[in-house]
């Protein structure tokens, strides 16, 4: 009730600024919502670390007025005003920052929140990147949205060049079986819909859990053992490899690697860093031993 009340008050206070009649463009965001935005938004709030990284990479650091508590890259992002975490952003703070564009990501599941922002007439662009190509596509579209099309083209061309260079060097090499562990008690891995499944494919591997439904399913330990993974990636926050996975080929040949989850789980420009790191671990015979 308090929340509804505060939204109502904010709404009535801001009612006058809603129709900024001239010069608005209609844009369709990545989940098919039509929104009205100014041609070059000047006061942008980012609701996902990947979006913050994308905006900085597009040279829009000065135009960001708010970020989430998880936006820790680049370091300058830490100096920005925080509007909350990705689950509970403060609508009051977003209004108080005189925001003219909010960019969210489907990864953070903010449907209700998007609706609340609609009520106070702040446009919300929702990005929905799927796979590495999807991430690059999303960067292009955020470039169009923010009036930095040329910069976005430059950035995606360079990123795409790095992806293609990895693939060219991989050629037709064997694709090792990969187990990716995001949590070990219980075992949480990546499913068909996860971003990381595509990343492993592009890095020349094959996820043993690629046929599982969903993004981040809980996985049977015995199936993980039975599939004989040759490489195991552990999210950095995770402690060591669970004892019972040490008898897998990956454990026996020492091919167990920690990898920075921020590079894998954030579909921004650094996704290509993650891809290159994975490719080097998966194919030392191609990229050399570190």
């Amino acid at each position, binding site marked *: 009730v308090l929340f509804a009340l505060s939204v109502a008050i904010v709404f009535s206070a801001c009612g006058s600024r809603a129709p900024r009649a001239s010069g608005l463009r209609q844009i369709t965001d990545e989940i098919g919502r039509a929104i009205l935005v100014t041609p070059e938004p000047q006061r942008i709030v980012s609701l996902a670390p990947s979006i913050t990284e994308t905006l900085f990479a597009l040279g829009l650091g000065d135009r960001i007025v708010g970020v989430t508590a998880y936006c820790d890259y680049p370091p300058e992002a830490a100096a920005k005003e925080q509007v909350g975490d990705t689950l509970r952003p403060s609508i009051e703070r977003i209004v108080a920052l005189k925001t003219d564009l909010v960019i969210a990501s489907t990864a953070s599941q903010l449907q209700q929140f998007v609706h609340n922002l609609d009520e106070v007439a702040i446009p919300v662009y929702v990005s929905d990147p799927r796979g590495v190509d999807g991430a690059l596509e999303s960067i292009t579209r955020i470039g169009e949205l923010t009036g930095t099309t040329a910069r976005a083209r430059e950035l995606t061309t360079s990123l795409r060049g790095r992806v293609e260079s990895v693939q060219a060097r991989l050629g037709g090499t064997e694709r090792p079986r990969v187990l990716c562990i995001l949590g070990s008690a219980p075992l949480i891995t990546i499913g068909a819909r996860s971003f990381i499944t595509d990343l492993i494919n592009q890095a020349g591997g094959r996820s043993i859990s690629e046929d599982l439904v969903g993004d981040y399913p809980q996985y049977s330990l015995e*199936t993980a053992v039975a599939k004989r993974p040759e490489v195991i990636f552990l999210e950095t926050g995770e402690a060591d490899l669970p004892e019972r996975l040490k008898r897998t080929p990956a454990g026996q040949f020492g091919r167990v690697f920690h990898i920075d989850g921020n590079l894998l789980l954030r579909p921004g420009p650094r996704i290509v860093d993650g891809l290159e790191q994975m490719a080097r671990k998966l194919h030392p015979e191609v990229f050399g031993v570190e």
Partner: protein
Amino acid sequence: LIVTLSVLLIVVVVLIILAIAIGSEYVSLDAIVKIISGRAAEITPEQRVIISEIRLPRVLMAVVVGAALSVAGAAYQALLRNPLADPYILGVSTGGALGAIAATVFAESLQVSRPLAAFVGATLTIGCVYVLGQSKQGGSTERLILAGVIVNALLSSAVIFMVTTASGARQRSVLSWLIGDLSGEARLLPPVSAFVAAGILIICFNARSLNLMMTGEEEALALGVEVPRVKVAVYLAASLITGAAVAVSGVIGFVGLIIPHAIRLAGGSDNRLVVPASALVGGAFLLVADSVARTVVAPRELHIGVITALIGAPAFIYLLRRAS
């Protein structure tokens, strides 16, 4: 009594064998027999790891945890003469979980500190609830349950606070851990089993006193039962086995509440039967529930709490209707 318990024991053993035979990966009965009889050389190393290091510990863990939670529930219900009492309602499970999560978040060497912290958390919680539940006129059952509810609410918010402030991967495993999971830490099986066995024995030895106390503490005193000593011993034992269970499995609901009730509905409320039968039936129940959780959507797994509620709630309703 002996006959009933023997039959239940045989059922548990049969279920253990069945549970070892099923899983997300197919291992033939022949291979299982070879592994158990020590002729492991003819078996692939994966099959050996799956059976002896993954499935067997998990199956035994389910039995131990199910026995622990059920006996703890039976003990609290008898002590408090309240059908709603169970480790979860009294906040003891959450207290254990909070201790364990604190250990996971703050102490990097979580393997050793987690079960210890869970024992401490469970014991402190029941202590707090007990003190809060006392009034000037002595303890009343309603007051104690109320104290449990309040302490549980406080501990839950502390858990949520710690989960929100923990980062990324830890947050995920802590959350899943709160809902309950039996796949972890096979190494902890021996100490946890020892604690649970000791606790259950202590409660069994006090079963006759509990019977007398259920008719009224003053009457029990008059009949020569050392009521305060029995209460402290049973409270401590119940909290010990709850803490041990929570430390390896997380908070699993429903078991401590429904199993003792089911046994009382079926066989009467003599604690000399209820306590050991709760251990066996609770172990069997959680074993079946976990076997379903790990096979029904294989190779994915369900949360054990989903299954305990799905099996437990209809069974409980059926027993209630039959009794009335």
